């Protein structure tokens, strides 16, 4: 009569494979730690080394216009994209013909697959000239509103154009996410509303939107995270200046961190490279905070929403 529990046989293959998998998982943590560490190490010379012409008044006064530009462009893009994304998702999930719904979903997903440099080309060569007369009209007739004031850009390379391009880029991801959430609304709730005599809009207002609200918020934050890091479209379309400006129709716009790095890095040397890497670190921090808040919002309501 033994009183030792039977132990499972641990074969060599099991041990090797389990450890391989474990190290692969841990390598993710190690990689991110390395990214942060190396970026940090490369940014330090910007503070400790000889002063750089561009940052003559200190690091924060150098990076502040770029932070403002990044956030401002992304907020404009998000403000345009969110209602459109909700509308598109609603259309595909509740309004469109069943046959068309899948095709339309594919069409919107196609927008997501287009590389950002193509958006940049299209933005500056097609959209900017197209919007220029509208900007002139806005400035002439609504110029008393502060954001529309100022000297209108002649080329259309304005913050508003960039905001629109960012919105178009962020739209498909948000629309796909929100569509998935709307499709997961409990059928019973929808049918109950319709059975009680609600019109389609009333059913959506009562059953779909409350269910999908945390999902919409998280999709918006994920879209924001994506817009914050967008480089090429902004680099190609925006006409930058080192100012903090709220006006969206002029050609003196605050550049974004990512676009600034893309434009300056290839020709930069010495400490200027380190300064640019430091601004990249700031961008990394901002996007990480936004993404973490988005994940926290999802996880808070995970059991109630379909946004997992």
């Amino acid at each position, binding site marked *: 009569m033994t009183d030792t529990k039977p132990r499972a046989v641990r074969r060599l293959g099991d041990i090797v*494979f389990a450890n391989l*998998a474990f190290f692969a998982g841990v390598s993710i943590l190690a990689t991110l730690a390395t990214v942060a560490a190396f970026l940090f190490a490369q940014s330090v010379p910007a503070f400790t080394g000889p002063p750089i012409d561009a940052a003559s008044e200190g690091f924060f006064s150098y990076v502040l216009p770029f932070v403002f530009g990044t956030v401002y462009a992304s907020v404009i893009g998000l403000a345009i994209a969110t209602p459109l994304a909700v509308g598109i998702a609603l259309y595909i999930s509740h309004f469109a013909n069943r046959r068309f719904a899948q095709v339309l979903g594919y069409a919107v997903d196609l927008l997501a697959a287009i590389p*950002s440099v193509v958006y*940049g080309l299209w933005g500056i060569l097609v959209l900017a000239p197209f919007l220029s007369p509208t900007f002139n009209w806005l400035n002439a007739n609504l110029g008393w509103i502060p954001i529309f004031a100022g000297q209108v850009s002649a080329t259309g390379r304005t913050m508003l154009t960039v905001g629109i391009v960012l919105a178009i880029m962020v739209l498909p991801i948000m629309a796909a996410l929100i569509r998935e959430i709307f499709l997961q609304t409990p059928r019973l709730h929808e049918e109950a509303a319709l059975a009680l005599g609600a019109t389609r809009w009333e059913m959506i207002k009562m059953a779909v939107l409350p269910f999908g609200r945390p999902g919409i918020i998280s999709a918006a934050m994920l879209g924001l995270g994506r817009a914050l890091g967008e480089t090429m479209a902004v680099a190609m379309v925006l006409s930058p200046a080192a100012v903090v400006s709220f006006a969206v129709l002029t050609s003196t716009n605050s550049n974004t961190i990512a676009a600034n*790095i893309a434009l300056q890095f290839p020709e930069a040397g010495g400490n200027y490279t380190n300064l640019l890497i430091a601004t990249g670190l700031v961008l990394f921090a901002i996007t990480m905070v936004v993404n973490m808040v988005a994940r926290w919002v999802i996880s808070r309501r995970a059991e109630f929403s379909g946004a997992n």
Partner: protein
Amino acid sequence: MPKWLSPTLLVSFFLASFGLQVLLASDSDSVEINFIPVAIFGLLGFTVALYVISRVIEGVRKATDRLVTIMVSTAFSLALIPLLSLAYTVVTKGVARFDAKFFTFSMRNVVGEGGGALHAIIGTIEITGIATLISVPIGIMAAIYLVEYGRGTVARLVTFFVDVMTGVPSIVAGLFAYALFVIFFGPGVRMGLGGAIALSLLMIPVVIRATEEMLKIVPNELREAAYALGVPKWLTVLKVVLPTSLAGIATGIMIAIARVIGETAPLLLIAGFTASMNYNPLNERMMTLPVFVYTSYANQGVDMQAYLDRAWAGALTLMLIVMVLNLVARLISKYFSPKG
């Protein structure tokens, strides 16, 4: 409300708005008709008229329902317009240089007319290939860890940081690759391999997420049947779970490749810009297709149109590659995924 009323109202308001614009334009000297105001005022007029008529005939609730239908349909059309415009522009402007010369020449010694993107295409294939070779094993193994082995704090940390990794901006990935290579090669380093590492940083989280989803879908009964027959865990994963989810994993990998193949920013920083062919990813700068498109636009020479034509042709090539990849991914998912 009669069925013909709504479309008739729509058409008539657009015509009225157009007519009004023509009238106003003929008053002043300019002859140009700006279509945006025509569309906006036509749509506004139609919306107001439909709402008022519907409210009078059918009541408030129905009228609000119609109003929302208009708004949602407008949102959808607004989203389709840029897609159509983009596709139209890229195709019409890209075919100008979409010839054999574009695919067989590099830009070496070319100033102005002529030249091609062969060096960029080879560079893209090499760099993306190396990035895939790095990301796929790590990604699949990490996903296997998360699904099959992970319990507890480490697994939760890994999941959280994979989510963080999906949000890393592409330019930060490029800066990291640069920072990594500066340690070994000194400042100012440009290398194809660096581009591959930056791209794999962007690819790994996508591969992990897709593989995780596919592994979770494999029914537990399959695993338990294998265990019951005495198959060790590692053989179960390798021979039962992975083959079942292979189609989905392949789809995820193709989508990850499609995502990184168009990334410009990290490659601009670390792989650099060159006009000649370079087959060696360990030696100096390597040109890639997205960087080719960007520099053809940004560094135009004297003959602007030739550079723009090459940029559009490059954009068309890039879009075709991405769309083919997405299509192949969907086909794999449709035909090879296990049914039932």
